[in-house]
């Protein structure tokens, strides 16, 4: 099958790549661009491990085709924070021990960023429902929700 030329802004960099029309954005990110921080847990949009932002909109990259990223702005876990300076969300996940195995963490950090951009002051229930698309099997979510609420508070205070 003939490959398609795609140009997208990924984490602030303009990236060009060739992709098969059936390749998902997840495959492109991981296998073409080497951005393996975005994880595959299910390939069917059920687990949220592959969460990325396209034009600030939260999506499962396994449900988006690579060609659909043409001309769009994509943000992955590798674009969160600034070099060695972690984003507040990342800091709070560490402080609250909100990860165990860590495979769901990149997706949760991305989803939390989307949540707090939409709603800087969520209730616990709002946070739980917003993050219901991100499965974590290790933590029981308690410390994740505490980290999210603390990050929200800190970001409001810093704003």
């Amino acid at each position, binding site marked *: 099958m003939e490959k398609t030329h795609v140009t997208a802004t990924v984490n602030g960099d303009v990236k060009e790549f060739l992709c*098969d029309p*059936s390749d998902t954005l997840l495959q492109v990110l*991981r*296998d073409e661009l*080497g*951005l*393996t*921080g*975005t*994880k*595959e*847990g*299910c*390939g*069917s949009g*059920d*687990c949220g*491990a592959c969460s990325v932002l396209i034009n600030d909109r939260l999506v499962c990259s396994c449900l988006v085709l690579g060609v659909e990223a043409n001309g769009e702005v994509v943000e*992955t*876990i*590798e674009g*969160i*924070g600034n070099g060695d300076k*972690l984003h507040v969300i*990342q800091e709070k*996940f*560490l*402080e*609250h*021990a909100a*990860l*165990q*195995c*860590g*495979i*769901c*963490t*990149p997706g949760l*950090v991305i989803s939390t960023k989307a949540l707090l951009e939409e709603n800087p002051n969520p209730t*616990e*229930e709002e*946070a*739980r*429902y917003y*993050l*219901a*698309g*991100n*499965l*974590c*099997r*290790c*933590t*029981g*979510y*308690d*410390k*994740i*929700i*505490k980290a999210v609420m603390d990050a929200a508070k800190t970001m409001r205070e810093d704003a």
Partner: protein
Amino acid sequence: MSEAQDFKYIGQRTIRPDGHDKVTGRANYAADLALPGMIWGKILRSPHAHAVINSINTSKAEADPDVFAVMTHADIPNQTASGIQNILAKDKVFYHGHAVAAVAAISEAAAERALSLIEVDYSILKPVMNIDDAISSDSPILHDDLFTKGMVEEPTAPSNVASRNELSKGDIQAGFAEAEVIVEREFRTATVHQGYIEPHACTVRYDEDGHSMIWCSTQGHFAVRATTASMLNIEQTKLNVIASEIGGGFGGKLGVYLEPVALVLSKKSGRPVKMQMDRNEVFMASGPGSATRNRVKIGAKKDGTITAMEAKLFYEAGWAPGSSPLGPACMTVFTPYDVDHQYVEGFEVVVNKARCAAYRAPGAPQSEYACEMVINELADELGLDPIDLRLKNVAKEGTQTLYGPKLKAVGLVECLEAAKSSAQYKAALKKNQGRGVASGFWFNVGGESSVVINMNEDGTGTIVEGSPDIGGSRASMQMMAAEELQMPVESFSAIIGDTQNLPYSNPTGGSRTTFATGMAVVEAAADVVSQLKERAAATWNVTPDQVEWKDGTAINTNGEGVLSAAEICGSAAKTGGHISGRGNISARGASPSFAVHLADIEVDPDTGKTTVLRYTAIQDAGKAIHPGYVEGQYQGGSAQGIGWALNEEYVYSEDGKLENPGFLDYRIPLASDLPMIETVIVEVPNSFHPFGVRGIGETGIIPPLAACGTAVSNAIGVRMSELPMSPPKILKAIQDAS
């Protein structure tokens, strides 16, 4: 040790050393390694639950220009290797999803396409899908050569019952004769999956002359090496297994599925090979945890003194005999109770499902669920508070267990008392709400752990350990080394060594890592201290016993002089070469961890939907090295147990096909399904560990089954006896009762 100790570093909530990599996406998991020239492997799986393989024709796949290698069972070099038939089926398939053949091709999509070119001719057999059918006299027999082990009389015909276990103490009949109240019930639990988010994956490279390499996600890379080296007839020194970061295991990544296949494909193709299971393959062909049918009978006097406890347990093994956790199920079922007369009989049954794998406290959740449900019903019958009934019969130091040892100091009394005084136990319940309490017990294991601490020229140290870190154990290792060396936690990094860097270590399992590998870290750190003292002594021209190690420095007690680790390590070349400490141990003295959980659940009587309102998990940690990650284990175990109790189950069609191999239909708890999970860390030190540690990873999944089972039963006024208590089942129970 037995007294509480003062610690400088242990007990703090430090930032884990691997944390930065994990929140930034830099941490590399099983599927994250690509090698130059790498191709992709895929497995062809059986569409049938039970069938004879008449023939496999791979010629069309081999002719495909995108295909580099094709293999079947016959291509595994060691045809007598243990476990080989689960890697690739030989002449029969035993479950829907059983691996039959494999290909390696230029891309993942090409490999997928090539699978459809392989022609397999099957003769379909009737599948056996549950315990009742498997043990009935007219059931098809899975294995003609399977004769039940452990029977009093030698069996003369093959059977689907693989083995019988029996444990006994006291005189069970005399015990029931003393009883004034007897409760007897039967319970069923469904097939469940560990549900780790990271699918099994590996990248391998076969090297004819030198050192082959496997990069994979596993709980035990030494076990992967042993299994794979055996199947390929290669020496262990020529196979290096690198444990990637692991995205959850819960026992399900103790087994080997892909690695030998990938290495044979690499050998045949001359290329590095990557394999990754799809999510549906994970559900179909890895895990699961046993479905069970368990009957428990308990007798007591009217004052609440339990006189006799009896259980008859049936555990599915999947298709492969010996794969169920029947042994631990029998061992654990009654351990929270100090009762003289106990009897357990257990049976392992083969069915046409995937080979069962360990799942967090393997076997214990199902058997203890049955016991704890009966205990709660007995409390109701006797008009006693369920915690008081437990306290009256509680296992404690000196209690003779059914399975062998007498208990040393354990913390069950403290857990029960903490439950009784908890805020949740006092909270008022409204209409359609119920509360359940349950205890849990897991024995924990020790085993072999190897650790080296390499001291650097600047006085910092690198801890190299052989235990894959699933939940933050590197932080614990760092803290234990810091404590022993009296140096800041940040002075140490902790990494998981490859199989070629360290001697053998047992897998991460049995809640052994912080306990046993922690002991090895302490031993290695003590070795470093003694070498640092020797070097300081050589510098000062005194004997090592004239040197004291205090606050991370050597002090000359025979004169003046203080040397830091940095100074000693910086001049190590002049005093005998660089310093590394070693701890290669076989740890004994793993001490049990008991837990008590409280669940408050509301049931919508119109739909059967459950809402967990409040949840408290209380457990004895001996000593919590990192309290944050100890709480995390309690909470994570609780969540898995809640999922097991309320929603999770494998659903099969009549012809044995798994109908819900995905997270949409096998629904594990979401953030919106759970409340905050309160935790209480009880600390009754384990005298065998230098800091008092008990393993804590597994116990937490045990109590939720009966805590939720009882809470739902109390909410609807009907005794539930089957898991999961999904809304349709609860609704039916309500309707049947009215």
